[in-house]
């Protein structure tokens, strides 16, 4: 008897590495940068372009830039770099406009409060979001207005709206846009889908009118025509007029977003609500709107981004928003120089970009989350 010969291997051999061209950086490069002759050419062209463009831009913004200076003299000497010292010197003006320096903590408080409330509303798993919504849409506008405008009863001196400016006004305009536009837009959207012909016609006319004309003409209209249509004593404040225009304008766009959400909703939801014996307001408030509004959160946020960028136009009616404050800051003779304007506009661009791009990312994230929920 001989021992059985065992042919089964007990230890596995070490794995061979994969071929160099099937994984890792080389394979990635081959698939994404050099997949064909044209692709290779494009890659080389872009690398050359980047080498030509990027280093000078980076040098302009960092190494060659003037970071701190008492006035524009240093910036005029260093003409091949940005003049960040200008932004630093004007930052307070850019944020608050001519708001009295002693009272600026009020602006900070309102902005911090608003940021906290928006965070509460936009964080999907936050507790008691309904309470947050009430605070944001009802309590916050009133409290914020009192804090900004001032109330002698509470020991807060009145600050005339003519002095408000800068980022404060930009955020305020956008916020008024959203706070008034969303409820009003929901009403308009419901009106447009109403079975009552007069209600439907009025909503359609309103929405299509405000969506059909440029925002500038609405601002002009609010500025020149609004004072004519109210009794002399009620003439709205100079800042209030564009805010009214902004609210009406954004309500029309918001209405179309909400209508999109209402249309996505299954008919069965309406029928189910009616079968439960809910009347129209309850059906809308308890069944339809919670679902429809959740579905259009990305659309609403995108709308808000557009709204925020549109706030730059209010300067046409003499309101000093962030961009207009920047334009005013350029006029300071102490800071005149060839690099000032480019620096200022790049800074403003970064400000808007960070804000809007962040919001856009958020809305894309919500959209993905919602899509996941709907698929299952």
């Amino acid at each position, binding site marked *: 008897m001989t021992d059985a010969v065992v042919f089964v291997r007990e230890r596995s051999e070490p794995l061979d590495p994969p071929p160099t061209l099937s994984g890792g950086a080389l394979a990635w490069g081959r*698939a*994404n*940068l050099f*997949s064909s002759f044209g*692709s290779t050419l*494009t*890659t080389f062209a*872009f*690398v050359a372009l980047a080498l030509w463009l990027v280093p000078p831009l980076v040098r302009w913004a960092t190494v060659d830039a003037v970071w701190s200076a008492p006035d524009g003299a240093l910036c005029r000497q260093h003409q091949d770099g940005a003049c960040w010292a200008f932004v630093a010197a004007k930052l307070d003006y850019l944020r608050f406009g001519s708001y009295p320096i002693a009272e600026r903590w009020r602006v900070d408080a309102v902005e911090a409060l608003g940021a906290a409330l928006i965070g509460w509303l936009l964080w999907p798993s936050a507790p008691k979001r309904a309470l947050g919504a009430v605070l944001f849409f009802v309590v916050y506008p009133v409290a914020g207005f009192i804090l900004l405008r001032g109330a002698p009863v509470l020991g807060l001196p009145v600050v005339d709206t003519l002095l408000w400016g800068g980022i404060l006004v930009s955020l305020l305009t956008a916020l008024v846009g959203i706070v008034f536009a969303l409820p009003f837009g929901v009403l308009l959207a419901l009106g447009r889908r109403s*079975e*009552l*012909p*007069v*209600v439907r016609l*009025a909503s359609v006319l309103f929405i*299509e*009118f405000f*969506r*059909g*004309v*440029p*925002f*500038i*003409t609405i601002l*002009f*209209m609010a500025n*020149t*025509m609004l*004072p*004519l*249509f*109210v*009794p*002399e004593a009620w003439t709205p404040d100079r800042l209030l007029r564009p805010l009214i225009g902004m609210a009406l304008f954004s309500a029309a766009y918001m209405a179309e977003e909400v209508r999109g959400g209402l249309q996505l909703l299954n008919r069965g939801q309406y029928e189910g609500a009616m079968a439960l014996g809910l009347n129209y307001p309850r059906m809308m408030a308890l069944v339809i709107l919670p679902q429809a509004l959740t579905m259009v959160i990305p659309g609403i946020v995108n709308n808000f*981004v557009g709204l925020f*960028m*549109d706030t*730059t*136009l209010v300067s*046409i009616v003499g309101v000093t928003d962030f*961009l207009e404050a920047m*334009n005013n800051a350029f006029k300071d003779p102490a800071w005149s120089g*060839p690099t000032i*304007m*480019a620096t200022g*506009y790049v800074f*403003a*661009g970064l400000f*808007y*970009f960070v804000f*809007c*791009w962040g919001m*856009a990312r958020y809305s894309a994230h919500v959209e993905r989350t919602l899509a996941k929920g709907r698929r299952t």
Partner: protein
Amino acid sequence: MNAALINDPRVRGFVYQGLLVAVLGALIVGGAYNAYVNMAARGIPMGFGFWDEVAGFDINLHLIPYSDLSTYGQAFWVGLANTLLVAAIGIPLTTLLGFAVGIARLSPNWLLSRSALLYTNVLRNTPLLLQLLFWYNAVLKTLPGPRQSIALGDWIFLNNRGLFLPAPVFRAGAPGFAAALATAVVAALLYRRWARRRQERTGRPAPVGWVAAGFVLGLPAIAILFAGLPFTLEAARLSGFNLRGGIPVIPEMAALVFGLVTFTAAFIAEIVRAGVQAVAHGQVEAAAALGLHRGLANRLVVVPQAMRLIVPPLTSQYLNLVKNSSLAVFVGYPDLVQIFAGTVLNQTQAAVQVMAITMAVYLAISIAVAVVLNLYNARYALKER
């Protein structure tokens, strides 16, 4: 009985609508009354009599005859023409750029698609007004003067006075050239119809593209051989301190068109990308299974389906471009809003009439575009069976 009446939805409907009509009517009547009182008190004209009054201001760009002796009505037409001019130049350019960037987004080359993404992200997330001011104040205004123009060959010059394009000067060959071109286009269309009919009948395809190109390029070329050049280009020339001749584009217009085109193109690129990606992958695979190579599959299967999704949002972007051209007022380009809702309104104080006319123009454009889009949708929408 009463309770039944209250609960009757039809009765309720009438009550609600009656209330709405009453509120809206009160708002309108009250507003009109206030406007009447206020305008009378401030001596603001109430009719359209200002239309025929002498405007007394000059406009630095007018396509139709205009001088400071012209009327407000003529100023309106100048403004409208300038608005339409920006649209007519901007829409083709932004379509080209937008489709190019959109296709670049879909490129398999990582650098190219990432660069296109960077382009769309930056331009879509900064305000158009900021971009326009940047191009106008920080770029165009800081360019060198006419003597140190940035020149593209001897033909195109860019300086702080604007952009100077070469102007065509028509020659003796122009009528013959035009006739040849028209004949070629008609012939190409007829040939395409014939080829299509034959393919439907016999299944044999004909090289439509090559033949059409032959017609359109060949016939005019023959015309040039016999009758001479149709036109020659004449570039601007430095004389004294400025460039003369050619087609001068004022810097305001250059900045406005450039800003609008690049901004709108970013949105169009996203529409193109989304449209192409929305075509189901099975369609591409089915086309490959039928033996169509990539070019044919794109042309016959992907593009027709993608265009159906692209065209509606594309037209609304065109409309946005027209509406956004009202930002001209910030860079001083004399468009409808700047001339009419700006200068004319300030001089005549007739706010209600001027704003009503201005808005009516934009609404008319919006409605016209909507009608055309509906016709397109009715013709090309998927006929589901």
